[in-house]
């Protein structure tokens, strides 16, 4: 499998999209009650007030949509980050953006800010994500090696998680402490269409900002100096990507909690299929991330009812061994 697979970009995107569509549909089928899905969808579209339409439009559809958009965001942002930092281990989960976002969301939710205005929740997530990302970047320095970046990320991650625990212990709600695991592992169960609408604007804005960065990321593979001579402003590119990640990851994580490893694994798996070209990787990773999270969420729901396993547990179970594999592989090159 070492030789590059002969797939054109459109073929690759087409295949991935087909898988994504199939998983999205499958996700809508899975629930505690077998419901006639097409009838339910028709009722929901025609505004017929039926119970199956209600389950379809208010329980299953938001769950599938949140999985799709969160997965895509994490995959896309992972690809953009790896391209920008030219570091195979950069990803929203590892360098602290995700836990920063969760911390920001926790500040807003448990102390009543999001009850005043619903947009406080994603705003908190965005600020947290941006602060964590920039902090790690500054801590590690501009030409940071893989190791330095990961260490800075570990430190910021630990700090954010400790603060989340502290805040949830101090929160006035008697239910807060039990929700620590939810913010640390992430869950896309039990959300409503309203939650999806809360995360959507930030996510779309973040994606939009990332659309034009592909060519600059391609140029960056030739080195920073070459990029600058090609007329690309590096500081501007950096800030553009950091802000895009903050908007998209911040909004998504403020609804789902910190879901790990998707941003790390997906770009790696797809990179050989796009000839290691960052511009082609962006879209492919977005679709790949959505596929991975939807598949993980479907698996979580196949466990017997009442087990309530968080989707982040599953992505970490897949992601952590992969992370180890990456470390071992990079050691071979270094030593």
């Amino acid at each position, binding site marked *: 499998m070492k030789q590059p697979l002969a797939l054109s970009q459109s073929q690759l995107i087409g295949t991935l999209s087909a898988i994504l569509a199939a998983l999205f549909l499958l996700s809508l089928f899975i629930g505690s009650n077998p419901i006639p899905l097409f009838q339910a969808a028709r009722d929901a579209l025609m505004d017929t007030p039926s119970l199956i339409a209600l*389950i379809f439009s208010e*329980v299953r559809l938001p769950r599938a949509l949140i999985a799709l958009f969160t997965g895509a965001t994490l995959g896309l942002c992972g690809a953009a980050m790896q391209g920008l930092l030219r570091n195979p281990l950069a990803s929203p989960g590892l360098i602290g953006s995700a836990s920063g976002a969760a911390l920001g969301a926790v500040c807003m*939710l448990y102390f009543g800010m999001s009850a005043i205005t619903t947009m406080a929740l994603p705003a908190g997530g965005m600020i947290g994500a941006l602060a964590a990302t920039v902090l790690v970047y500054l801590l590690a320095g501009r030409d940071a090696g893989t190791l330095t970046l990961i260490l800075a990320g570990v430190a910021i991650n630990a700090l954010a998680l400790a603060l989340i625990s502290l805040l949830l212990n101090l929160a006035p*709600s*008697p*239910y807060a402490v039990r929700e620590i695991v939810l913010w640390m592992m992430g869950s896309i169960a039990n959300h409503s269409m*309203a939650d999806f609408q809360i995360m959507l604007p930030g996510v779309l804005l973040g994606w939009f900002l990332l659309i034009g960065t592909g060519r600059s990321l391609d140029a960056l593979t030739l080195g920073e100096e070459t990029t600058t001579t090609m007329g690309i402003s590096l500081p501007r590119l950096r800030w553009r990507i950091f802000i895009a990640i903050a908007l998209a990851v911040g909004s998504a994580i403020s609804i789902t909690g910190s879901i790990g490893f998707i941003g790390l694994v997906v770009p790696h798996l797809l990179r050989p299929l796009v000839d290691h070209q960052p511009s082609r990787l962006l879209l492919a990773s977005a679709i790949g991330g959505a596929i991975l999270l939807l598949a993980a969420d479907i698996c979580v729901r196949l466990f017997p009812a009442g087990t309530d396993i968080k989707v982040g547990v599953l992505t970490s179970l897949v992601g952590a061994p992969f992370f180890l594999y990456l470390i071992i592989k990079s050691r071979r090159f270094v030593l």
Partner: protein
Amino acid sequence: MSKQLTTALLLLICTFPIQGGEQPNRVVSINLCTDQLLLMLADSSQIASVSYLAAESNSSFMAEQAQRHQVNHEKIEELLNLKPNLILASEYSNRALIQLMQKLGHRVEIFPLPADIKGIQTNITRMAQLLKQEERGQQIIKQMNQRIDKIIKQQPAVRPKALFYQPNHYTSGRNTLQDTALRVAGWRNLAAELGIEGYNPIDIEDLLMADPEQLFTSPYAPGSHSLAEQQLSHPALQRVTTGRKMIEIDYKYWICGGPMIADAIEQLHRSLPQ
């Protein structure tokens, strides 16, 4: 000299902890459920201390009365300082603490948590006997029964479907006070009909498929925010009850079983669709 000795002996006998037939006059309760019964049944002079939860108005039905007494936090040193001659606890109180107090020679009475009207009556009767306030106990039971009987006579012919929904998807199935109260008030309890036993979570799809006409909730900490509490404002819940808002029944009516269940039943009855 001998006269002084007799007086001293007499004094000693009088202040000796009273056991058996005498009315206990230094009663300490360490659990909200026994606190409330104690406050209802005992003379103020009998009560040495109630738990701190009894004075909190969100959880306690007797908060006002409790504030007149010293509160305890279920700590051994506190309890010893109070020199109790009767300690009241619930079946969910700290086991180790109870065993220690018993070992030190204190009388501890443990009350079960009732799940129906009969259990409430049993608890009231037993508490009244312990406090030597039988007459007051019978009076309270009589009043409660009268209020409940009045509601039973007014039950509708066709019972509408209802369900209790709490943060984290918890509902009240069979063998819970909420189930008893719903049925007495004239509702059907869908959670019990779905086979849920006690307090357990219900899947939101199951809830929607059961098609409740009214949802009830009992806020445990009104005004606080968490993901668990956010579940109660899921838009599907309002749509399934065709816009009828979830009705809040204060938790203090049934966090412990007591005669105040009649208040909750009356509230549930009043919220029946006309």
